[in-house]
Every structure is written in structure tokens, then in C-alpha cells.
């Protein structure tokens, strides 16, 4: 057990170095940041307002400058939609914060799609690369077993993913703060922690494990392209399933119709859906691990 843990830490340590030195993670991070930042910067408050469909001041007492498209008045914003917010009175700063958060959510949502697509393709050759570098004979002549090897590879991409996500979250938050002003930090962190990171972890695991049978990088990347529609489907499920978490943070986000999926559902149902989604993700991941393990064992039996 001690040897296995040491082997895992060794794989994570050195495979991380190898991956970082090929700059692939930098490319993933930069692409995600560029897309997300562009959306944050070009997104106007009016678009945000149209998006959440409250310009008619049914709920909010707001006006826009038609020419510039910017928000010019928020007259105390006394919002008393009891079925949503109870007796809570929304202040001007609350509303502004809420307002600024909408483009961030959209940026993260579209950025996530970009991130998942990039990860699918760019992580697909992590295991075939060992074949290309002719490292497998040397690696498996040590007491390393196939399962430790696969888990080590997945842990490596996860560690790199967490690094990229941490850096990306901080940079994006700073840019949003500079360009837009205050926004909902809690929601921002929850989206990163509960939506972006877990879904990217699942896609990373699938992208590393499923093409592991490939005997060269070209086949692995080709296979990852075939995997892409599956990942997009997964993304849609994730967005519709996990974006519900924003409703749990503040009921006001129920108006963000881009994310509004089951507005009438109680919290317990939403939490149940989220737990089920995570459970399914875990099962898919374990299945991918089993498939990859089977291929590794078969290769050694040949």
C-alpha cells in the first residue's frame, strides 16, 4: 500500500512536470480565459436585463439609456415578490451585484463548453504518449501495476486541472471586478466548485481513459473527436442539471431564464437531482476506468 501511494505521488509529480513542460495546460487555460473574458467584456447590462426578461419592470423598477444601453436608474428597487423572495427588500447594491453576475454566469457557461471540448481533445493522448515515447516497457518492468498507472494518469490531469481552474477563477474574477464592479462571489465560487471543476474532472478522466487503447497519438486524437458529441451531450446534461445550484444560492436567480430549468422544484428535489448527477458521473468515470484497465491487462497478456 505504501509503495502504491508512493508510486501514485511519483506519477502525479513527474507526469505533471512533463505535461506542464509541453504547455498543453497553458493552451487550455488561455483558450478558456480568452473566451470567458470576451463574453464578460462585450456583454452589456441591457443584454443581461433582456436575458432575464425584467426590463418591463414587472419585478424591478429600472430604466435604461437607450443609446448606451446602460442602466441609469434603480429607484430603490423595492422588490416584494413574496413567492420568490419573501419579505426581503432588494437594495440598489444588491440589484447591481445581481446584474453584474449574469454576464459572469454566461461567460462561465460558454467557457465551460470550450474547456470541456479542449480537454477532450488535448488530454486524449496522455497514455498513448507513453507508447510514442516508448516508455511502457520501462514503466511496466517496475512493480507498477496497470490500475495504479491509470489512476496516476487521471490524478495527474486532475491536479493540473485544479491549478488551471484556480488561476482561471482568480483572473476572471479580477477582470469582472475591474470591468463590471461587484458581483456575487458566493455564486461565482459555487459555480466553479460545483459545476465547472467536477464536470471538467469527469471529462478529463474520460478523455484520458477511453482513448488509452490507442497505439499512437493520431488514433487517440481521432477517437477524442468521436467522443466530442458525447461530451457536448454531457455538457447539456450538466448545465441543465447542475446550474440549478444557483437557485439554491439566491431565489432571485430564478429569473435568469438561461439557467432556469425547474423553477417550481423545491430545494430537496434540486439537491436530489444534483446528487444523482454526481452519482452518475462517478459511475461513468468508474466504467471508463474499468474499460481502460481491461485494455491495459489485455495488452500485457498479448
Amino acid at each position, binding site marked *: 500500500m505504501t509503495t502504491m501511494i*508512493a508510486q501514485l505521488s*511519483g506519477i502525479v509529480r513527474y507526469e505533471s*512536470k512533463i505535461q506542464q513542460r509541453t504547455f498543453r495546460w497553458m493552451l487550455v487555460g488561455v483558450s478558456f480565459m480568452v473566451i470567458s473574458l470576451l463574453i464578460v467584456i462585450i456583454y452589456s447590462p441591457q443584454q443581461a436585463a433582456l436575458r432575464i426578461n425584467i426590463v418591463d419592470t414587472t419585478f424591478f423598477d429600472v430604466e435604461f439609456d437607450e443609446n448606451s444601453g446602460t442602466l441609469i436608474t434603480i429607484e430603490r428597487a423595492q422588490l416584494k415578490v413574496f413567492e420568490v423572495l419573501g419579505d426581503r427588500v432588494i437594495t440598489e447594491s444588491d440589484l447591481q451585484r445581481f446584474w453584474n453576475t449574469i454576464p459572469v454566469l454566461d461567460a462561465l457557461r460558454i467557457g465551460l463548453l470550450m474547456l470541456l471540448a479542449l480537454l477532450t481533445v488535448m488530454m486524449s493522448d496522455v497514455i498513448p504518449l*507513453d507508447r510514442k515515447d516508448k516508455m511502457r*516497457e520501462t514503466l511496466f518492468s*517496475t*512493480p507498477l501495476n496497470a490500475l495504479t498507472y491509470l489512476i496516476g494518469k487521471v490524478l495527474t490531469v486532475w491536479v493540473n486541472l485544479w491549478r488551471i481552474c484556480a488561476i482561471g477563477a482568480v483572473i476572471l474574477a479580477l477582470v469582472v471586478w475591474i470591468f463590471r464592479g461587484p458581483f456575487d462571489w458566493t455564486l461565482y465560487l459555487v459555480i466553479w466548485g460545483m459545476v465547472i471543476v467536477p464536470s471538467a474532472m469527469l471529462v478529463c478522466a474520460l478523455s484520458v481513459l477511453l482513448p488509452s487503447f490507442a497505439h499512437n497519438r493520431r488514433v487517440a486524437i481521432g477517437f477524442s473527436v468521436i467522443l466530442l458529441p458525447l461530451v457536448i451531450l454531457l455538457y447539456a446534461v450538466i448545465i441543465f442539471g447542475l446550474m440549478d445550484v444557483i437557485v439554491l444560492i439566491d431565489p432571485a436567480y430564478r429569473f435568469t431564464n438561461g439557467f432556469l430549468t425547474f423553477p417550481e422544484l423545491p430545494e430537496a428535489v434540486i439537491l436530489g437531482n444534483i446528487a444523482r448527477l454526481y452519482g452518475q458521473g462517478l459511475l461513468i468515470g468508474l466504467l471508463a476506468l474499468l474499460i481502460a484497465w481491461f485494455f491495459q491487462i489485455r495488452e500485457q497478456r498479448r
Partner: protein
Amino acid sequence: MIEIQHLSKKYRRDVFALCEIDLTIGTGMFGLLGPNGAGKTTLIRLIAGLITPTHGQITVWGHRMHLARERQAAKGLIGYLPQDLGVYPNLTAFEFLDYMAILKGVVDRKTRAQQIQQVIEAVRLQEAADQRLKTYSGGMKRRIGIAQALLNDPKVIIVDEPTAGLDPEERVRFRNMLADLSQDRTVILSTHIIEDVSQSCQELAILERGKLKFHGSPRTLIREARGKVWTILTDGQRPQGVTVVSTLQSERGTSYRVIGDPPAYYDPQSVEPLLEDGYIWKMQIQ
């Protein structure tokens, strides 16, 4: 000590890479000879636990290789240098060796650092230890390959074509290093270069088409070829009915070193066989 019993390996239907091999390999240097496709690499990969046999079994220092748990334990005793050695081009030599030492189960950081220092010195790569492996020449990569095989003080060292691509001086040094290492452990040397075996191995095996053709000492192989090796001097006409081992042009004519039973009209002169002659005699005449 390595014991091989009734070992067979079939890759495709009815195509045996190895067929019914029985072999016992003790401490010292053991040479494995044979033409391309003879099954040398398959045998080495089976001993190293990289592939599993179709029939038969291998025991490495008491560990039965067909049992997964014992195979893992045996791998801890083996240092392996593959024929087609790969390295991580973006790691430095030190990092690569540290990684391999971790995988071999050298958990303690200080012990690891000590061992790495020792093997780097053994292969004389101290000055290049902090350079990335992509900057290494073929010979340097071979040396780093043997360095990783030496980590964790293995009881068995398996080297597949280790001197391929090395310059003569490097080859001699490398061969001597392996011979030194074989004093208290088993070193299996698979090679095409018969000189490497003749200079360093106490025992050897010859494989041909997956079958064991010879097992014994180099001296025995040489003895078997005695009376079968000749020199023939001609005016340039190649002798017929014999296997020509070498040709030497001189002022007197062309001198051929041949193996077989040349006709008397060639006036053959018997010469003392070398290991190469013994090998060719085994492979071509018998």
C-alpha cells in the same frame, strides 16, 4: 536464480514465438544469442514479467511469474533495459531516475538520492544529470537506460541489445561494467554482437525460431566447432559448399575463413575456432 520450465509463447494462432524452452540461469553473465525473430526479446520480456506465457512457467528468485502478486514482487528484483529504450524527453536525467526509483519502490527520499548519485556516477553522467533528456545523444540515453536498470540494486539485470549504437570505446566500457555487476547477481545479455558475449559471458543460450538450439558455456560451443573451421586461399574465386565467415584480400590472393567440410582441392588449413565460428556452425551447418 531464474528457472524456466516448458515455456511457450504464442502471439497468433499456431505461430509460436517461443516453444518449450527449459533453461536455468544462475548468477553471472548469461548471453542470449540468435538471429532476428528467434524469440530473444520475447524470452526477455517474459522473464521481465512484461508479458505472460501461453504455457510453462518462470521462477525468478523463488517468485513464480504466472502469479500476479509474486510477479509484482519479482519485478522489484529486476532491472530491465529494453531494446528500444524510451525516455521522457522533457525530464532531466535526475528527474527521470528519481521517477523510476519511486516506481521501483524506493520510497525514502534520502535513499533515493543516494542511489541516483551512485548510478549516475556508474554510468559517468554526473555533468549532464541536470540536462533534459531530449538533449542527450543515443549513447547517453543508453547510459541513462542502464542507470535506471541499476536502481534499487536489482538481483537480476536484463539488457536487450545494450551496446547497439554505442561507439567501440563506450561498448567495451559498458560490457566491462555489466561483467563487474554480474559478480553477485544474474545479468542476462541479449545481443547480436557475439564478441560481447565471448568477452563477458560464462554461459550462453542460442535461440532459433523460438526453440533452444544450444545452452552451455562459450568454451563448449567453440569446442563443438573444432575441426570445422578453415582458411582457404584462392585467386578470388569464392569457395563453394561451405559457409564463408570472413574474406581478407592480400597480395597472395583472397583468403576465406570458412565453416564446413571444404573439398580437398581447396587445400584448406584448419584453424582454431572463435565463438562466432561456433555460433555460425550451430546455426547454419547443423
